[in-house]
């Protein structure tokens, strides 16, 4: 009982410190450096502590200090309550989605079963969708409560776009669910032990569709219609400043991590190394004794998982800095006329193949 509690707390602390303490600030840095590398620039390198710049890493610290000292501005005529509530509604789902994503397998440590996921829900993937749809409310509320035309337009665009892409996104993963026969992410992960059973090989179309929908759901370029800075100034968060602004910003970055986590879990073998089964991994670390081997295998798996996550973060950043922005009606057309039929076809083909086999 106590061991379970310690295990849970340890996992929560681990996931949250990785997400909030590592990914959220470091992604800000990664985005700057990544874009700089792509654009023949040097990138952020000015913030320093006693002359040390640490290749620009202190910028996240400087940003944090800056937003803490900024005025918390609420425009006149705005609905104060909802204006304040909106960023929380955006951020909380973004943080919480990660609880169902497994970042490692099951291990026998000191006679105790360790399952590396905070909440092993049997409806795991549905939980993700449920929370993702909550984030829509935050965006719409932010747009509506700011009492600014730009924000309102951004909020309207966001609601239309996010609702549409949720439909398409939900349909894209049905193929995966048919193939693995489970909604539980740990189970889907476990089933991908064999390299050729990875989702990308069983559901290549599903992967492409899902990634597209997920980026659209996260409202990043090329799908950043709700904020489209050249049209709507900053869209739904035009009227936000200081910490509240950063909450939207953090929600966006955390969603990048979450998307990468889900993509890894569903399509890229979760925590598994390619061509190495769990048994082989354990036997590789035989020299350290049963507990040591399990511990080492766990470390390798967690590292593998996060390496894959980082790869997908990199991929999303590259897409973001390469493509121009769609127009609002084009985004909707893409969703309803391209992605939705394609995902339906994907379901049909998957169903037929599963039926025949």
């Amino acid at each position, binding site marked *: 009982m106590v061991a379970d509690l310690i295990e849970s707390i340890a996992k929560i602390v681990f996931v949250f410190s990785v997400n909030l303490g590592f990914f959220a600030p470091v992604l800000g840095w990664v985005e700057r450096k990544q874009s700089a590398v792509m654009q023949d620039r040097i990138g952020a390198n000015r913030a320093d502590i006693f002359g040390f710049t640490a290749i620009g890493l202190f910028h996240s610290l400087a940003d944090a200090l800056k937003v803490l000292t900024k005025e918390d501005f609420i425009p006149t005529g705005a609905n104060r309550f909802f204006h304040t509530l909106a960023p929380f509604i955006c951020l909380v789902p973004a943080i919480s989605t990660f609880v169902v994503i497994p970042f490692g397998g099951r291990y026998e440590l000191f006679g105790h079963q360790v399952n590396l996921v905070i909440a092993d829900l049997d409806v795991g993937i549905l939980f993700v969708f449920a929370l993702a749809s909550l984030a829509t409310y935050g965006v719409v509320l932010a747009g509506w409560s700011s009492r600014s035309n730009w924000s309102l337009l951004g909020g309207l665009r966001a609601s239309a776009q996010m609702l549409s892409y949720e439909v398409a996104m939900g349909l894209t993963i049905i193929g995966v669910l048919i193939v693995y026969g489970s909604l539980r992410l740990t189970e889907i992960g476990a089933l991908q032990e064999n390299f050729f059973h990875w989702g990308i090989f069983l559901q290549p179309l599903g992967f492409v569709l899902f990634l597209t929908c997920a980026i659209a759901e996260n409202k990043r370029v090329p799908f950043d219609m709700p904020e489209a800075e050249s*049209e709507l100034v900053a869209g739904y968060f035009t009227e936000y400043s200081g910490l509240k602004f950063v909450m939207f910003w953090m929600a966006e970055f955390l969603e990048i991590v979450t998307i990468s986590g889900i993509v890894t879990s569903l399509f890229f073998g979760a925590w598994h190394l390619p061509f190495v089964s769990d048994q082989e991994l354990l036997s590789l670390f035989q020299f350290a004794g049963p507990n040591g081997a399990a511990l080492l295998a766990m470390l390798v798996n967690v590292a593998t998982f996060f390496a894959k996550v980082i790869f997908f973060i990199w991929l999303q950043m590259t897409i973001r800095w*390469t493509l121009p922005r769609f127009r609002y009606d084009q985004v909707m057309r893409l969703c309803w006329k391209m992605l939705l039929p394609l995902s339906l076809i994907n379901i049909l083909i998957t169903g037929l193949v599963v039926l025949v086999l």
Partner: protein
Amino acid sequence: MSDLMKDLHTEHMVINMGPSHPVTHGTVKFLVTLDGENIVDMKVDIGYLHRGFEKMCESGTWQQVIPYTDRLNYVSPLINNVGYALAVEKLIGIEVPERCQYLRVIACELSRIADHLTNVAAGGLELGAFTAFLYFVEARELVWDLIEMLCGARVTVNFVRIGGLKNDLPQGFQDKTRAVFKECRRLWNDVDKLLTKNRIFIDRVRNVGDISAEEAIAYGFTGPCLRACGIPYDVRKAQPYLVYDRMDFEVPIGETGDNFDKYLVRMEEIQQSMKIVEQALSQLPDGPINLDLPQYRMQPKEDIYHRIDSLIFHFKTVIDGIKPPPGEVYFAVEGANGELGFYLVSDGSGKPYKCRVRPPCFPLTAAMPRLMKGRLIADIVPTFDMINMIGGECDR
């Protein structure tokens, strides 16, 4: 449903886009009436950068106008310099030496390259293609390096003089140009790959902001925007000035006049301008760059220090200004945005009686409501960028 629509209270949303808005480059206001995302009506409000250019010109001497012309189209100041100097020279009835004409062509084309690079780059930026923006801004930096080498300043150049130039070509300019153009062409290819065949980019700019050739003419379009409609009117070809008639270059034209055609025309003109600069550099003759007419063009400094007649002329032209004979002229050059005309009236005194500039982007901006009505609000972004309104020139 129809009952519901009847009872539903709907009204158009009026939005002030600008004067401080990311798409307006700081100095223009669109009063947009929206029905959802559709533009029902649009009013353009300019004048936020009005500095009284003509009044300033009328208060100074003829030579003192040149720095003001730098601030007209501040992205291609050398063309403004050259246009003004040529207009004054036409008013006086003089022609500058051949070497000077070649150098002016080089200066003009460098400016044109910089202008088109900026325009395409900004277009990419506003559509979210930040990487393409920075590639072209890097290319522009290199071109500005060349301009800096040529005249010592990057933006406010003040390089051309009436009857000559400030200075001759610096040492090593040819080699530097070769290196810069090589790099520019590499960056041009990169941007071409990033944008020209990019489906998202094409979807955003194709069939947006299109206008028929007849309408474009009625609105007074010139430059790349007119050529995108399929009319090959280029002042450099139609009424060649300087030594453009000796240059081998082509005038690219589009078909529909939409934003994609404007973009393609500008991209091609960058290449053509580089070709012109290379030709001009290879044909460059030796000889003086300034006219030997002390009442119009200042003598070299050594003469002024050592010869009394030069000193007197220097004194007279600086204090009183040069004195073109009374009369009026209109002279047009091909600016980066279109026909840049100067209409000068002289009353025989040292100050311009009237110094009117025909800004190419003024009629272009006036056509914005025509281009935008019935479109989506997002279409303002590429259209306004391809119009390439420059506040300094439009508002003067």
